[in-house]
């Protein structure tokens, strides 16, 4: 039972901590830091469903986040829908699109799939940059009136923060749930040897399309909330290729295939990134450092920090998984 997993309670404790910390002193700066960490964890843990669980590298994961942002922002500001409804519909829309795309490109194996995901990102970005209702390359802005139903801009920011924390907790619980399920077992079998898995009875085509679609849902919801909070969206920030790639760095750093690893990697890397970006001397080199870090992790500790912990303290595996 998932309720007996210590990790479930760790996840809930983490979410509670995220809620309590900024609230204590009404610390807006801390809230803004934590929301970035939360988004990093959401992206990484959902990316882990593809890379870590299924063994399929998705270089264009950010496309879900960006598309979710677009759909959500369009519904919330142009059509004036309720934010939560808009975010959920953004999630569903992007998931359905991912399912359709997935049934096509998931016929590709291994490296071909990875390349196709780069193509998906470029193609979606090109489409959005030419799509009139979404403001083409200038994007869309949130009108100030859209914050009114949430009790004004200041309150709206706090509300989106809590919603994002909720999405973060959901992402981790979802990852844990899949990991402990029969569905997850089928994914692991695909990761280890897809042909053997099929001969054992796993319907790989359907499983891969489903997990691709599932891994799109929460990032899309998060995208809708985040871009609403930021007040604007345009194709270059919504589909930032580098952010997509940094997601992979986060996952490898923490330890692909594990729930705790994706959270740890997301949180640590995001803090490192923020530190580098605000440091006057290092800000220009943040990609260099990220790249070097990835090379080191892949070469020296392919299991990431969590893999390293398991080797050091084998019993920790029981608690963390």
């Amino acid at each position, binding site marked *: 039972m998932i309720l007996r997993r210590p990790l479930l309670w760790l996840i809930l404790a983490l979410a509670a901590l995220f809620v309590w910390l900024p609230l204590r002193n009404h610390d807006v700066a801390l809230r803004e830091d934590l929301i970035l960490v939360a988004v990093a964890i959401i992206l990484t843990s959902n990316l882990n469903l593809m890379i870590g669980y299924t063994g399929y590298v998705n270089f264009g994961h950010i496309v879900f986040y960006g598309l979710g942002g677009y759909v959500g922002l369009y519904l919330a500001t142009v059509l004036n829908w309720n934010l939560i409804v808009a975010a959920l519909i953004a999630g569903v829309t992007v998931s359905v699109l991912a399912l359709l795309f997935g049934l*096509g*490109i998931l*016929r590709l194996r291994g490296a071909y799939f*990875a*390349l196709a995901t780069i*193509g998906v990102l*470029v*193609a979606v970005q*090109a489409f959005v940059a030419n799509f009139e209702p979404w403001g083409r390359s200038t994007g869309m802005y949130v009108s100030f009136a859209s914050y009114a139903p949430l009790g004004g801009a200041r309150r709206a920011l706090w509300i989106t923060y809590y919603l994002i924390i909720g999405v973060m907790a959901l992402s981790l619980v979802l990852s844990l749930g899949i990991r402990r399920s029969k569905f997850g077992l089928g994914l692991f079998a695909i990761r280890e040897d897809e042909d053997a898995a099929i001969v054992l009875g796993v319907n790989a085509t359907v499983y891969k399309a489903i997990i691709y679609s599932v891994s799109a849902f929460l990032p899309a919801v998060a995208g809708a909330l985040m871009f609403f909070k930021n007040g604007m969206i345009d194709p270059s920030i919504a589909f930032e290729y580098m952010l997509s790639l940094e997601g992979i760095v986060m996952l490898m750093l923490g330890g692909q295939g594990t729930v705790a690893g994706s959270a740890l990697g997301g949180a640590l890397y995001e803090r490192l990134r923020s530190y580098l970006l605000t440091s006057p001397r290092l800000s220009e080199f943040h990609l260099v450092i990220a790249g070097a870090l*990835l090379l080191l992790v892949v070469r020296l500790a392919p299991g990431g920090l969590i893999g390293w912990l398991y080797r050091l303290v084998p019993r920790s595996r029981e608690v963390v998984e």
Partner: protein
Amino acid sequence: MSGILASMIDGLLIGSVYGLAAMGLSLIWGVMDVINLTHGSMIALGMFGMYLLFSATASNAYFLLAPLIVVGLVLGIIVYWLAVNWVVDRPILMSLLSTFAVNMVVIGLGTAIWSTSPYNVNFSVPGITVGEYTFTGNHIAAASSAVVIALLLELFLRRTRAGKAIRAVADNRAAAELMGISSTRVLMVAFAIGIALAMASGALVSTLFPFTILSGAGYQLKSFVVTVLAGLGKPFGALIAGVLLGLLEGAVSPFIAVSWIPLIEFGLFVVVLIAFPRGIFGKATA
């Protein structure tokens, strides 16, 4: 009508540069089963390499290709030992991530040095005028250079000992090793050539269009499209497929905005991958 023709000829010329870039990717992919994700950053380095050399020497840009290819070979050897040698025969995830990490480092360094603002190489060759259309000399010079380099590579692969060793390793590495070919050396040479080709194509592009450190990514995508069109590990096929892609771009560009082109290329990429898993020029085998 002749407008389309001119646009297609232009596309054909640019396409041969795409083809040259894809040859580098295809060679590495075919010989060692590694998808070289440093490809885009190496194309970008070719652009900036040309910019630096041209600024320093102010000589004919196309003569500068020779030293740039040498730089590319050296750089290729360095990258090979840094990130590739130990991922050969490892799961594909490892080689993707490892080459990708180098890509991030290069792009990061490039951004720190040159920022992401556009540069250009201010060199032009007189054009040729046919009727009311003028074909820019640079396009013609770049295409000729690309074809010459491609032919030299093909000669190298077919006529020299080292080239034959590369083809043998690509064909069957285990068998080649039994015949006494040192596969590590061969892989290193093939990788270095692949990087040199990427840099050369970047250098050629820099004489045609303005560029930024991030420009390589777009050409990397085109290289992927071209490589799968040609079928893996068929460098010369890649040149032809590159020309075809250029022709296609030339044929559609009078009718639609340039910003749609990535969408078309990606569509082509997926359709080709699914319909012709071994490439259009690939042979069906058991």
